[in-house]
């Protein structure tokens, strides 16, 4: 059972509170009417299934109800980092070995980093109520 660091709650919680929600960073075409059937089909139905580094979307369903992303090794089940919606992973298949050598674990004895690079800040701005 996974131990997952929720980047919003800023705490490790048990997997039972979470729910996987498929591949992360899918881009819905901005103007669906302008894409071909094939492109739309790719968006709808085709997903990566890598052995190794994978970016997944999860939701803290029985917690803060926030969606966030996980970088996970599908071979070892190691969770390398968790990061908020709109951020980009700091560990990717391309740089995973380097990042591992640098030691990406957090100092508190845990497994996951929460280091991520904001790409789209509007996703994290609290909307005024």
């Amino acid at each position, binding site marked *: 059972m996974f131990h997952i660091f929720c980047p919003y709650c800023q705490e490790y919680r048990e997997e039972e509170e979470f729910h996987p929600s498929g591949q992360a960073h899918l881009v819905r075409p901005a103007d669906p009417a302008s894409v071909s059937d094939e492109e*739309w089909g790719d968006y709808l139905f085709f997903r990566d299934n890598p052995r190794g580094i994978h970016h997944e*979307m999860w939701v803290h369903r029985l917690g803060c109800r*926030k969606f966030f992303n996980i970088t996970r090794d599908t071979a070892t*089940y190691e969770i390398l980092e968790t990061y908020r919606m709109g951020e980009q992973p700091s560990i990717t298949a391309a740089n995973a070995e380097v990042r591992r050598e640098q030691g990406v674990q957090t100092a508190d004895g845990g497994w996951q980093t929460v280091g991520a690079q904001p790409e789209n800040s509007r*996703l994290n701005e609290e909307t005024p109520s």
Partner: protein
Amino acid sequence: MTQSNRLNQGGRIDRSRRLSFTFNGQQYVGFAGDTLASALLANGVDVVNRSFKYSRPRGIAAAGPEEPNAIVQLGASEAAQVPNVRATQQALYDGLVARGTNGWPSVQRDVMSWVGKLGGSFMPPGFYYKTFMAPASMWMTYEKFIRKGAGLGRAPTEADPDIYDHLNQHCDVLVIGAGPAGLAAALSAARAGARVILCDEQEEMGGSLLDSRESIDGAPASAWAEQVVAELAGLANVTLLPRTTANGYHDHNFVTLHERRTEHLADTAAGAGREGEVRARLHRVRAGRVVLASGSHERPLVYANNDVPGNLVAGAISVYIRRYGVVPGQRLVISTNNDHAYRAALDWQEAGREVVAVVDSRAKPDGDLVEQARDAGIRVITGSAVMEATGSQRVSGAKVVAIDTERFVVTGKVETLECDTIASSGGYSPVVHLASHTGKRPQWRDDLLGFVPGEVKGMHFAGGVHGVYALGETLTDGADVGAEAARAAGFEEAAAMAVPEVEVRHESPTSALYQIPHEKPPLRAPKQFVDLQNDVTAAAVELATREGFESIEHVKRYTALGFGTDQGKLGNINGMAIAARCLNRSIPEVGTTVFRPNYTPVSFGAIVGRHCRDLFDPERYTALHQWHVEHGAEFEDVGQWKRPWYFPRRVNGKRETMHEAVARECLAVRRGVGILDASTLGKIDIQGPDAREFLGRVYTNKWAKLAPGRVRYGLMCKDDGMLMDDGTTSCLAENHFLMTTTTGGAAGVLEWLELWHQTEWPELQVYFNSVTDHWATMTVTGPDARKLMSEVTDIDLDREQFKFMDWKEGKVAGVPARVFRISFTGELAFEINVQANYAMHVWKALFAHGEKYDLTPYGTETMHVLRAEKGLIIVGQDTDGSVTPEDLGMHWAVGYDKPFSWIGQRALTRPDTAREDRKQLVGLKPKDPKVVLEEGAQIVLDPEQKIPMTMMGHVTSSYYSPVLESGFALAVLKGGRNRMGETVYLPMSDGTVHQAEVVSTVFIDPKGERQNV
């Protein structure tokens, strides 16, 4: 019966407490502190079981969880039956009843022995597949008897009287195993302040220290163990869990511990005088760090007839003598490749019995223990091994011969030594099981002749599990590793405890030896067992390699090596070594072996915990549940909700059938007034300046102009254009909406809305909240609904003032309420929403006023009939994830010209979703009005067509309509809307064929006038 093998003194048993027990129907007596195995050996019981495949007599071979033979069925009563208990791990209690699981009908006379003799002396791997395959239809019959004969244990046929539970635990350091390494590690970590859990599977903590000949700080090793356990028990940050097996190591240091709390006392908690207490508990531990100190298992050697009772692993001899005061025989021969086995010889001799010889495969063993044995006058035969045991129900002798291990041949003349016990030792296998549970492969170490764990993140290894065997080194290793784990868990000052003094022994190196060569070729020699539980022989492994199985994973599956409940704890390495020899490869080249949870069998009770009976799944009740119960409702499960299904009345002293009750309830709604508890419908409160825009994107229809006070029905699709949910949404205020969902879809829809808001359109200012439980919903419907409502509400009910699909706020029965003119029955209807805690008051007030209108409560079954008569769909019943709004004929609810490309819109123009001949929703009217078509029945156009027929669709909803006085159905049918008036056929499994006419989905009031009265 006397305990003929019991010593007068020694051992960690209490001779003043005599416990009587029954094994295979025979009464025996043992002592407190015994295991079932030690008590059986004390009583001279040689044969405890019959073997799995060949039905050979088997005796106790080991003293721990690796025991392959003494597998028993435990329990005095039917309800207390427990299968697959290892006698070596079951504490003896007074009144214990057990029998060998193998060997039906008895271990002495075995009906299965003919199977073992079939085909001469050799039964090849794959025997069952090859022999009992034909005819295939008979396999079930064969299997029944094979299983019974093979004795895999059986489940009780009565309910378990005991309770079990789960405990979630967190700790800084979890130490698995309380032998020398584990105790030292726990003490180091605990003294540093870490929260420590120390678990051990045995009755008593101490592991190998409890049967050790060595001393620590000048005192017996067991005394040191007692002292450390006492110190740990006094520390507030330490939890000691004896009788607790770490059974599974899962991702991210999640470990399941199986604690047996009363099983050492009786076969039920009540029998132990602990009624109502938990019998076994599963600890779900999330550990900061895990220290695996699981030690090692001694490997037996593989020689001919090594399964005859009286063959044991050498270490077990010492355990039985030193812990239980039991010497399991009179005359001992030891066959070994290492020094440690000499302990057994010394212990045996000191117990006053005869050691015939120690047969050592090494040419010149000269370790301290070897010299000690020689000094004690024990005959040591070097460069040799026991080639074969003689005897059938018990060992009668050992054939000893000089061997050449390099060339795998015997080199001398066979000498037969008279004896009744042969103890063998082929070295030690680290207990790497937990370290491989997450898939990490163990690594072979030539210097150790064993596999050690691969690197596992968050796990540390101490002692024998990674090949540190000498006592002094084990203590130092444990102390260091305990401190290291504590430091890694954040206790930076942690230091290793001071290690007590242990005398260093000189040891001569162990030689690599697994199988003993025989004077006959391997396939002709008497059986040499590798896996005793599954009856796998060296010849079977060799044959498998000849038949082309080269990977050990394939050899295992072909021969069943290691597939018993013992997971091949004794046999796996020997089997790999034999396969390696046959294939001329090294052991790591034929593969490593990975273990899976659980380490030893876990009772279902412990796995299930409290999640059984009433607590198996949560049940949700509406605020009106008690009223429904009191009024005799039958209930239906809808998601986790208990919904009234129908309300049978007593008519002329007889209780109505469902059919009668539903017909009455339907007519009441169509002719008078009925009431439904609709509280379970999902309700989501949506607020924010962009709420309206958001609705327009997630629903297929338009929301831009829905005014406050108005209600609209909406369809929700996934982005593939398939319908996922439906419901009404009401505009409460300009920026405030109330969405209803299907009962089962409520949680999923809320998450769906959050998903799109959080990941695609975070710029929209909108907030969602589930208010399902806050509001109770009562649907008052039927021609008399307005009359009834007018008596209980201050809301203006005039049909021009309060139109269909309007909602109004007011008071109902004096309580603040929202009333919606929504109809799921086709009749005039008012859906009253009140705060849930007022619901019972309002419901009762409605009945007080409704009596004169014969207000009739109805349930989900009637609701289904009424809505189907109107052609109103239920998502999940009439749709299945492959149905578009167009397929349902709901073009009117699809806003193709909305400015934003809403979820699902793009997919509706894909060629497949735009096809003309898609399955479309239609009505079906059976030609015979008495027929109610089966839901799920397939529709064909030509009933004469040969099978496989061309299937055109299927029935999704089907009922009897008391209004139509006929059966009727909804169905999906290819190109259905162009087939109106056609006749279709529904062949049934009994050969009958029903005929039905394709009709409109609306069976009653096609113009929709009744809901507008």
